[in-house]
């Protein structure tokens, strides 16, 4: 990493930049900034704080928030539990077909939510290829909160696994070797050395998955339906209100923006402390 970063200033120094280029860069950034922030600013300008608090007092809105938080927490639990060891394996072993495995694991990243919804129905829906097995196990997914958790997990987990794999791969292998030389089993080294060392990356991955799960809409609607308190998460509640109560839809949107901004901010803080920690070490 430091080698690449060190090479860059030298290369730039060799070729003087024309004066118009920085202007183009500035204009491009200004355009991007305006385009990306204007809709978000409009959410807050269009709804008064009083209206916002009112809308949050509605039972349906509170149900949606509570459901979103519960379903997201459950899906994050699953993602961390399964995704962490899987990412560790991907980061530390090389085996035949590994890049294919990585591509498959990352595929949901580029799937449209509607495709995710159809795919889940075709796989584990009541008449999907595994529908009978799911039913035999006594689990109901469609139109149930469990279905929401499945949808969120499907779309959000690649964000975590991808980030966690990178985090494990960048841990200095001599630390792991030292731990093994001192007699620790691989499982113990994984828990006591690898996870703490990769923690900033794992946290960032968790936050990304959290943001994606909170915002999930299409797969949830298609696979799990929309019912207050059971399957109607905040994005679905926003869509439901869009036609009848635009103010309330705005207020719920504002809450989602605030939560998402808090997530993004915490990722930045973690990454900064990681950078500082790295510099100190």
């Amino acid at each position, binding site marked *: 990493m430091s080698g690449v970063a060190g090479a860059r200033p030298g290369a730039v120094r060799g070729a003087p930049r024309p004066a118009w280029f920085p202007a183009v860069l500035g204009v491009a950034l200004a355009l991007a900034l305006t385009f990306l922030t204007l809709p978000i600013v409009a959410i807050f300008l269009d709804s008064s704080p009083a209206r916002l608090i009112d809308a949050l007092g509605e039972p349906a809105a509170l149900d949606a928030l509570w459901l979103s938080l519960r379903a997201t927490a459950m899906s994050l639990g699953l993602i961390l539990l399964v995704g962490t060891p899987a990412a560790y394996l991907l980061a530390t072993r090389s085996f035949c077909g590994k890049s294919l495995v990585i591509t498959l694991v990352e595929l949901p990243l580029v799937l449209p939510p509607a495709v995710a919804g159809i795919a889940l129905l075709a796989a584990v829906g009541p008449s999907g290829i595994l529908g009978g097995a799911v039913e035999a196990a006594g689990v109901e997914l469609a139109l149930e909160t469990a279905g929401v958790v499945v949808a969120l997990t499907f779309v959000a987990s690649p964000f975590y696994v991808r980030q966690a794999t990178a985090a494990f791969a960048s841990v200095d292998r001599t630390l792991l070797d030292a731990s093994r030389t001192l007699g620790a089993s691989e499982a113990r080294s994984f828990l006591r050395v690898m996870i703490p060392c990769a923690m900033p990356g794992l946290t960032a991955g968790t936050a990304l998955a959290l943001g994606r799960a909170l915002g999930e809409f299409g797969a949830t609607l298609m696979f799990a*339906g929309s019912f207050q308190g059971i399957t109607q998460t905040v994005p679905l509640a926003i869509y439901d209100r869009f036609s009848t109560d635009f103010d309330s839809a705005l207020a719920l949107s504002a809450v989602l923006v605030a939560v998402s901004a808090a997530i993004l901010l915490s990722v930045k803080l973690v990454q900064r402390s990681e950078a500082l920690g790295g510099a100190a070490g």
Partner: protein
Amino acid sequence: MRLLALVLATAALAGAGCGDDSEAGSGKRPRLVVSAASSMTEALEACAPHFAGANVRLQFAGSDELAAQIRQGVKPDVFAAANTSLPVELHADGLLSSPVEFATNQLVLAVPRDSEIDSLGELARQDVKIAIGSASVPIGSYAREALGRLPAPQERAILDNVRSNEPDVRGIVGKLTQDAADAGFIYVTDVEATDGELRSIALPPELQPTVTYGAGVVQGAERPEQAERFVDQLLDGRCADALREAGFRPPPR
């Protein structure tokens, strides 16, 4: 990364293809944007390409959602809703021309083809899962209107079995064809459009709500004359024929 690039490239090509179709096929013909209730998808897709004088771009969604878009300043040329109240409200607010009633539809109970359910009464059974339209969509309010004419305990028992309030007809049909729900309330035309995947059970006449479709020209439409002609032939013309073929009935006289 390579995969992402491939997917993006494919998407770009597909997008470009669509654009070419609508523009190139048109020559210099003007474009007419029609926002219509999802329940008319099949019928209007069959007749719109034959509309003379303009390329019709159809936009389907729940009527309430389309009305909300118009309130937010989206300007299609024609708005065709699955009820008359939304067009009348938009007209009262100066956003739509005086609406025309152009078709009627029947609300039915729909079940998957091999379902054991044969009557409305069975929906009150405890293990039945029902999908209906959200209260804000016409299909949802018609269903609630019909159920409201049942004795209160029966209405209660049926509504207690509702597991999903879908934003439009397509959501309900999807839940039924995928066996996620056991029964739902949709229009008879939606059942016919599934080509036998779903079976319709007629509601007792005393429960049947009046499902009248209304359409109008959006104020500030780019092509008001063409829009008006499109509305006219919903009432009498190629689209009226397509609607009859799909199971819609003529408007009340």
